[in-house]
């Protein structure tokens, strides 16, 4: 076999006393697409950071083309031909597309920036990606998907030998994904080595030649994708039997279909996000929502829970019209929302776990009716126990918990309100598989206890597994509502991906 373009041996990174990466070997060959898999905290991002120079190895060796390298900064890595595109778009919304593509390696004449050349170069790269936008336009005026593609354009605009794509597809729709994969295959032809990180197993199997699995900062193994069964991959990532993944928690439909829906929305519209949506949420039922990013699924959730003001339509709760002008009034009616953006719209990282859990309840009671400290502790502890939040330390700043546990803290905050309607927007995004299953099971239990739950997820299988009925959203409209028994993963994918609304 030929020589790897990039090779890590015994890579170790310590944060304080904890090893985030412990003696990992990793190799990457020219012209291959290599997936890096693992749960959250397995060390994927640490490994990527070490490769891209964002972080230095505590010990171990990094070789590029057989030569030992020490990257002191991302700049060094870029010099060596290692480029990266991160999940959260790391571009600059305030400057032009062309600059975003070539800043750092911008064309210069007599030491001055050559704007014309820069725009032409950008135009060429964008055309390569099949993107026809004005290179001189300000990046922030484009959609997130376009911005993501611009980020990729930036990465491939120079002679990249190693391209790291960290969750590049999370904000792309199916067409854009297909376009991206076409570009990846093209780059592969040209001999670029690509590291591809994604939570979507489908994509990993579609595009990757090889997969390296990490767990708890250690290497589990390196496999050829085509010889590696999915179930084995999941097992390698989890390090325990993946039984729980296969189990479908519950599927029986609420029997009393005749009962009045607890919450019913009619002709709800918010801006161009969601139009004319009718939704019925029944007690004891999980309503799954399937739709692509930008389909209006989040807008729907926010509209139903008073986060955004309605531009049209009505929401009835137990038969009476209610105006949910803000989250507060929704909460007082028992309608609560958990945002897809855990970090920016959910957790208060510097407040303790206890304060985070009791926050909404306290806010509902009002400033002057403080929950007694003893009662707060008791309450918070009961939720920490019930949801198995780890570590079970009430005074720990919530920001230091893992993603899955932060999500549980948020759920606890909402559940402490004793809600009747729970709207969960991507509650399982970015958390490890084990925690995912726990959240899914919890949702089922809550519905069994009479709550009405809306469960939104980008993973259609998950929506199918958890939901009793599935609401399909597309282009800001509700396409259909289908009992989940009548659906399979494939048929649902077909529905969601249906090119045009009828």
């Amino acid at each position, binding site marked *: 076999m030929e020589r790897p373009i990039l090779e890590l041996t015994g890579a170790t990174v310590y*944060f*304080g006393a904890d090893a985030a990466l412990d003696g990992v070997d990793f190799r990457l060959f020219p012209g291959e697409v290599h997936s890096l898999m693992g749960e959250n905290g397995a*060390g994927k991002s640490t490994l990527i950071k070490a490769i891209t120079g964002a972080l230095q190895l505590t010990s171990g060796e990094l070789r590029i083309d057989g030569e030992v390298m020490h990257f002191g900064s991302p700049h060094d890595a870029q010099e060596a031909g290692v480029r990266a595109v991160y999940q959260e778009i790391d571009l600059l919304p305030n400057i032009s597309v062309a600059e975003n593509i070539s800043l750092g390696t911008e064309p210069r004449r007599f030491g001055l920036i050559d704007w014309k050349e820069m725009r032409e170069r950008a135009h060429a790269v964008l055309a390569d990606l099949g993107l026809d936008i004005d290179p001189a336009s300000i990046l922030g005026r484009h959609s997130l998907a376009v911005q993501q593609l611009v980020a990729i354009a930036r990465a491939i605009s120079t002679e990249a030998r190693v391209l790291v794509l960290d969750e590049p597809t999370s904000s792309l729709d199916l067409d854009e994904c297909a376009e991206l994969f076409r570009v990846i295959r093209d780059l592969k032809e040209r001999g670029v080595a690509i590291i591809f990180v994604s939570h979507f197993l489908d994509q990993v199997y579609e595009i990757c030649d090889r997969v390296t699995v990490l767990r708890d900062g250690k290497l589990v193994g390196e496999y050829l994708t085509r010889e590696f069964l999915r179930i084995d991959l999941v097992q390698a990532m989890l390090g325990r039997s993946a039984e729980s993944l296969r189990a479908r928690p519950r599927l029986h439909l609420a029997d009393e279909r005749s009962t009045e829906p607890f919450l019913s929305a009619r002709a709800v519209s918010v801006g161009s996000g969601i139009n004319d949506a009718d939704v019925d949420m029944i007690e004891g039922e999980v309503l799954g929502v399937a739709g692509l990013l930008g389909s209006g699924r989040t807008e729907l959730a926010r509209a139903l829970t008073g986060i955004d003001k309605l531009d049209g339509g009505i929401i009835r709760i137990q038969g009476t019209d209610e105006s949910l002008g803000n*989250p507060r009034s929704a909460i007082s009616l028992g309608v609560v929302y958990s945002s897809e953006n855990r970090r920016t719209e959910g957790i*208060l990282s510097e407040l303790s776990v206890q304060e985070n859990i009791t926050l909404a309840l*306290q*806010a509902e009671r009002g*400033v002057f009716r403080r929950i007694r400290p003893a009662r707060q502790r008791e309450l918070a502890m009961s939720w920490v126990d019930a949801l198995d939040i780890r570590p079970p330390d009430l005074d720990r700043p919530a920001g230091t918990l893992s993603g899955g546990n932060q999500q549980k803290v948020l759920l606890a905050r909402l559940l402490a309100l004793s809600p009747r309607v729970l709207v969960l927007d991507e509650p399982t995004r970015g958390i490890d598989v084990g925690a995912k299953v726990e959240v899914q099971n919890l949702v089922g239990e809550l519905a069994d206890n009479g709550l009405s739950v809306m469960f939104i997820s980008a993973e259609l299988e998950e929506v199918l597994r958890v939901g009793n009925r599935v609401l399909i959203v597309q282009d800001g409209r509700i396409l259909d509502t289908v009992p989940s028994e009548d659906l399979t993963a494939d048929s649902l994918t077909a529905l969601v991906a249906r090119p045009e609304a009828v």
Partner: protein
Amino acid sequence: MTRLMKHRLFWPVFSLLALIVINTIARPQFIKITMRDGEFYGALIDILRNCAPLMLVALGMTLVIATRGIDLSVGAVMAVSGAVTLTIIDGSSSPGSTSTVLVAILAGIGVSLVLGLWNGFLVAVLDIQPIIATLVLMLAGRGVALLITDGFITTVNSEPLNFVATGYLFALPFALFIWLAAAAAIAIVERRTALGVLTEAVGINPEASRLAGVRSRGIILGAYVASGTLAGIAGIIYSSNIRAADANAAGDLIELYAILAVVLGGTSLMGGKFTIAGTVIGVLIIQTLDSTILFLGVSSAQSPVFFAIVVVIVVLIQSPRVHQWGRALTGGFRTRPGTEVRNDAEVTA
């Protein structure tokens, strides 16, 4: 919990004590408190009395900073409230009567409250960055004060007004009781109701707080109203002390000293966690330092150099980089694993 509190206030308290000790060594009379005519006198008493305006402003500033804001207009509000109060007293037929002074003071405080409301409106309702929003009043406020006083320094001789800054109650300066009452009231309201934790929540993440049903707007608005009102009272004490309304000099640079006091006390300018006790100590540090500089015979015009040095030292002590250096230095002698890992855990996630 108490240990944590102790930890947070350790450096501020230590600095204050150190200053007092240094002063006492340099001039033993510093610590001496004498009783004359049933009233206490001494350098320490002076500090407790003279810090009143800064204290009130800094207390308000703490609340605003906790909501992740800043109030640059406090000096201008002081000027306006002093101008309003003294213009009313000056224009009345009986400037010496207690009721006139009371009405004038209430009017001054009322106007400041409205100015605070205005700031709060810009920040909480129109969602304008606090630094910019309060810059408007910082610029325009002094102009308004100058218009009220017709561009002159309005001097007033009124016994009840003089009492505010220079009077004595129970053998101690009256001004001391004003700021003690304000500090106690704020501490009690913040800690005995849920206002404290909700304010912190808003300061850490306004949007997440809104989604959790916290009335972010109301809390932010309230903080600016409190800041404006407290600045108004500070302006009246200031005017009472110089027996005049000086629209240019009143509260000059006080916003900067107040912010410094808040930071000295251990409240981060990034908002969130805050401490009233810390701010009180921060103000006392500044006032003691001021008295020290004066004692050293440095011209008061040159004293900013010292404050600059203090600011630099304080921010360096708080800086993560210096902490790292400190750890690297002491790390060789004693290792205490588990204390500093907390922040790093986030990085791995």
